[in-house]
């Protein structure tokens, strides 16, 4: 029995929760690494500004982490509430990574608590800095384990099917499924990249608003360097993801690239609009799809013609692919120009107001790229909730009132979004960097610097 309206609203509510959670989750995964790098830089260079950077980021991070935790709890339970049939089938297999994810978070939370509590209480800066390692590791491991669950949904392995039930479960085989390496790596580096660009956007914004403090310049350059490294890494791993898809989920790749006919020397379609089966106004890069899929310009790439209509994801995921890739490439360019310009010294435009605005836009743009990437990953797996085994409508709840719950959660997320933004803005407006440095010096009698 399938309750059509419950399926529809369950998908809507899951999409809403994930789309909201992923913003805070991405920041939650990436920012601890930024804090660690800033503090390490400060320690190495013996520069108080970097230490303060770590401190201020950590202060804001606690707020976003709280929202990340509660929305993470929500999606954790919504898996069972909205997709009870799916959890009945797969719950036993994915319980281990879910459990480990919680444990990784637990680990992170404990050390984060100690780190925050022991500011200025350690004699040695180094010991205090070491506390950040478990925080950053815990945050990243949470992402690893939760992405493993998603990878399992894309490439289920490690069990036998007897009478429609998964038996003889080998949890580690299930965890190390073929989708896992590229997916986990892509999620991690894009989280680091996005966090760097979001923090850079804040620094850029403060500079546009007239702050001349050298603190912002230092932070901007550091973040642009980090962002550059991870945005290049994201592109490289994205390329590997294409090869994974070509091998294991060819229809997902074909739909994302609007590749209708199976052919060799396939060209990559960028942008464009779809008119029936005709692609209009697109940029076609010859051989690029064959290279993306198989590392070989002549290789044959499976097209949509090889699949039944009912097994195909919706074709609009191509737009999501475009958004994700163009923003990613754009950010590589923005950070590359900034870092090279800084190193060469001659390029004045990177200090101009319009370039600052581009850097400010980079923060929200990166978040949009993350959203587009996840929608691509999730919608691209349709019609399956568990690839090849269970279709999405079969996994959904049959219970009524899902639409009402959607409204309820939409209200809560709105409250959390507004609340967290208000708190963060107030927190840093009341205590700008100039004042914080002044306060510290008056407390310490000016013996630093």
């Amino acid at each position, binding site marked *: *029995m399938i309750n059509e309206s419950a399926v529809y609203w369950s998908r809507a509510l899951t999409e809403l929760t994930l789309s909201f959670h992923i913003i805070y989750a991405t920041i939650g995964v990436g920012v601890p690494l930024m804090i660690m790098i800033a503090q390490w830089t400060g320690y190495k260079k013996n520069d108080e500004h970097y230490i303060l950077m770590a401190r201020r980021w950590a*202060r804001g991070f*606690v*707020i976003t*982490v*709280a*929202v990340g*935790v*509660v*929305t993470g*709890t*929500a999606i*954790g*339970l*919504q898996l*069972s*509430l*909205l*997709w*009870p*049939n799916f*959890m*009945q*089938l797969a*719950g*036993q297999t994915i*319980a*281990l990574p*879910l*459990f480990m994810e*919680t444990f990784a*978070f*637990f680990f992170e*939370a*404990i050390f984060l*608590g100690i780190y925050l*509590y022991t500011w200025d209480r350690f004699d040695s800066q180094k010991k205090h800095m070491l506390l950040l390692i478990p925080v950053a590791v815990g945050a990243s491991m949470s992402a690893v384990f939760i992405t493993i669950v998603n990878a399992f949904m894309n490439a289920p392995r490690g069990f036998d099917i007897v009478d429609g039930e998964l038996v003889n479960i080998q949890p580690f085989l299930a965890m190390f499924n073929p989708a896992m390496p590229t997916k986990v790596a892509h999620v991690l580096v894009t989280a680091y990249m996005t966090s760097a660009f979001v923090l850079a956007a804040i620094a850029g914004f403060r500079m546009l608003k007239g702050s001349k403090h050298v603190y912002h310049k230092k932070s901007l350059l550091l973040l642009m360097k980090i962002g550059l490294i991870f945005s290049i890494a994201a592109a490289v791993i994205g390329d590997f993801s294409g090869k994974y898809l070509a091998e294991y989920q060819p229809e997902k790749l074909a739909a994302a690239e609007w590749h209708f006919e199976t052919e060799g020397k396939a060209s990559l379609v960028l942008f464009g609009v779809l008119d029936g089966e005709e692609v209009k106004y697109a940029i076609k890069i010859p051989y690029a799809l064959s290279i993306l899929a198989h590392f070989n310009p002549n290789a044959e790439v499976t097209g949509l013609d090889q699949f039944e209509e009912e097994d195909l994801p919706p074709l609009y995921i191509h737009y999501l692919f475009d958004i994700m890739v163009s923003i990613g490439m754009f950010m590589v360019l923005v950070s590359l120009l900034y870092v090279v310009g800084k190193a060469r010294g001659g390029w004045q435009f990177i200090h101009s107001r319009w370039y600052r605005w581009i850097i400010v836009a980079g923060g929200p743009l990166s978040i949009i790229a993350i959203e587009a990437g996840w929608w691509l990953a999730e919608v691209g797996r349709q019609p399956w909730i568990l690839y090849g085994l269970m279709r999405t409508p079969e996994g959904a*709840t*049959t*219970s009524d*009132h*899902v639409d*009402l*719950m959607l409204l*309820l*959660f939409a209200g*809560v997320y709105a*409250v*959390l979004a507004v*609340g*967290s933004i208000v*708190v*963060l803005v*107030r*927190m840093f407006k*009341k205590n700008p960097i100039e004042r914080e440095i002044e306060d510290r010096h008056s407390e310490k009698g000016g013996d630093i610097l």
Partner: protein
Amino acid sequence: MTLEILGISVLWIFLFGYVIVASIDFGAGFFNAYSLLIGKNHILTNIIKRYLSPVWEVTNVFLVFFFVGIVGFFPQTAFYYGTILLVPVSISLVLLAIRGSYYAFESYGTRGGHIGYTLTYGVAGLLIPASLSVVFAIAGGGYVDLIDGQPVLNYWTLYTSPFAWSIVVLSIAAVLYISAVFLTWYAHKANDSEATKLMRKYALVWAAPLMISALGIMYEMKSINRELQSYGEFMVDVCDFSCLIYCHSRTHCHAEKVRTCSWAPNCSICRSLLCLWNCSISIPTVSVLNHLR
């Protein structure tokens, strides 16, 4: 030991951990808000904040361990409970989200506090046990119909059930009582005599509604004839009672400065063991009671 027994033991530990830590946590948040309203926050806020700040994420982790674990060990429950609990648990989730984030907003986001945030998380925290305890009432049976093989929760029966409401009242009273008793002990440990006195007063005040609602539930259980129906609730009651008796004796000991309960020192492991022990006796007790009835 079969996998089922192992699984349920692990789950009970998680649930028990959650019930104890969360009761104290939610109650503390409420008392903090209440003291702010009646202008006694100078006595309580300090001691409550000192306790609350390190535990808030840990509490949540116990809950997540529990619901991840139950799906892992008993995948069938995902189907039955997942389907029928959509609305009740969604309400709990909303409250948990408000409580967790506003707690963080208040304690990390403001200097010197924010009365609106404090009240928000204090009240949300008190409603969470009320909304979660509905699960126990539903688990007892009688509120779910099987239609075409699909479980459907009968909201009206649940909403008009005095039994479910008694459980809700009990959960709130128990949270306030357990939390007050714990904070009495905690304030006493911190040599804060004024806070100790005030918390002790709250503990005594909340003991009465607690006992009345617990007795009410026992009475209602008598009138319900289905075999095993109240098994779960009864266990919860017994466990709650064991906590109460224990906490109470402890408060008493400390208040009188007589350490007669030396077998249960200030050690959380002993406390948990005691609770589990009570749990395990309650199982045969309930079976016997059921047969006698």
